[in-house]
């Protein structure tokens, strides 16, 4: 079947989509958007997190046909072509929150959503927001640092990207 939707502000179309295929597969294999990572395929790890109509979801658990006509924003859609990385992405770089990098896209999207809703999160808020994102390298401390840094910078300069 054919699926048409908006990805990062651009109208996209995928053909010959299998009816049981996930949004994640369509993004990575059909649309050239490999930022969202494929790890567990069961919603356990959060590395495929994308915005669907403004809500973060595991794209491995969304059937491709369900996004017909809807808006998807992936990690590729957070940076601004003019001004560069989103404040959350830059904070992950500066805090050294990236080791192997596989979990990073999901963590960046989920942290971005947290700061959009709650610009001054407590450590507990951060832990709760990231509880569905697994990282097997860092031990999470650098990730906590990155989110605190992003919150401080976003607070100083406005906010995370819209």
């Amino acid at each position, binding site marked *: *079947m054919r699926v048409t939707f908006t990805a990062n502000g651009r109208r996209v179309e995928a053909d010959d989509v*299998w*009816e*049981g295929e*996930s949004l994640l597969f369509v993004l990575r294999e059909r649309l050239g958007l490999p930022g969202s990572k494929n790890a567990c*395929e*069961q*919603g*356990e790890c*959060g590395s495929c*997190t994308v915005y669907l109509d403004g*809500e*973060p*979801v*595991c794209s*491995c*658990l*969304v*059937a491709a*046909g*369900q996004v*017909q006509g809807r808006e998807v924003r992936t990690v590729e859609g957070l940076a601004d072509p003019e001004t560069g990385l989103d404040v959350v992405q830059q904070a992950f770089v500066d805090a050294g929150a990236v080791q192997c990098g596989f979990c990073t896209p999901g963590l960046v999207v*989920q942290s971005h959503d947290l700061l959009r809703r709650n610009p001054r999160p407590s450590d507990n808020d951060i832990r*709760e*927001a990231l*509880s*569905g*994102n697994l990282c097997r390298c860092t031990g999470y401390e650098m990730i906590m640092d990155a989110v605190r840094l992003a919150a401080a910078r976003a607070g100083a300069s406005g906010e995370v990207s819209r």
Partner: protein
Amino acid sequence: MEFLRPATWDEALAAKAEHPSALPIAGGTDVMVELNFDRRRPSALLDLNRVGELTKWESGRFEGQEGEVIRLGAAVPYARITRELSAQLPGLALAADTVGSPQIRNRGSVGGNLGAASPAGDAHPALLAAGRDVLVEAQSVRGTRLIPIDAFYVGVKRHSLEADELIRAVRIPVADGPQQFSKIGTRNAMVIAVCAFAVALHPKNGTVGTGIGSAAPTPRRAAEAEEFIAGELAERGLWQSGALIGPAATRRFGELVAAAASPIDDVRGTAAYRRHALAVMARRTLTWTWDAYTHSLRSAA
């Protein structure tokens, strides 16, 4: 495989009548796991995401139920139940907040929990505890059938829906007393319950509701424990006095809850552990709800 994409509820019912073996999908948090792992190949997927009324809830009065009722659309995501309904449905809101992770709670819903009918579904104990008059609203092109929650679960991952029926909503009486939910897992997020327990005090009719999860082939009520504690509260005039229930009755309640379960040994825990944990959770949640009740009694006086 076909992908059926009804735009309205009537179209969805027509599609289900025409394709009785179609598998409904809303949040996808259960269905997609089965597809991704080749565990299931339904003849068709019936996507319910475009049916707007499934993600709405309303409050009102409905035939066959006393007092104010929340008619919860089948696909209202857990995150919204916690945000919007924690005053009206406190037990279900607590259970909803323990489901998976934030991403899962943005998609998963009570209709999906009911459709999967897993004994480990987090919503079930809270629905059972909310009362025997909780009704699952099943619809088909033939009409509407209201299934009492106690008659809904019929076996491991089996429910009492007919092949042409879809879950439209669940009708849940608004809480008239404190409610609690408790769940055992290896961490706070992303766990399938080792076992779970919900309790609800119903001071209006002097009953206590319970629900056991992950400790029997189906979610189940601890009927003897409910009768026992309702009897204690009535005989000793505790609903009026607000005095302590006391350790003997609380312990007995826990024992009866544990006895109502028929758990098995599996990868998540042993049967003996589940029984023990249920007794502990039953004692604690009863104490928490009773403390809240006596507090409300005193602040009303």
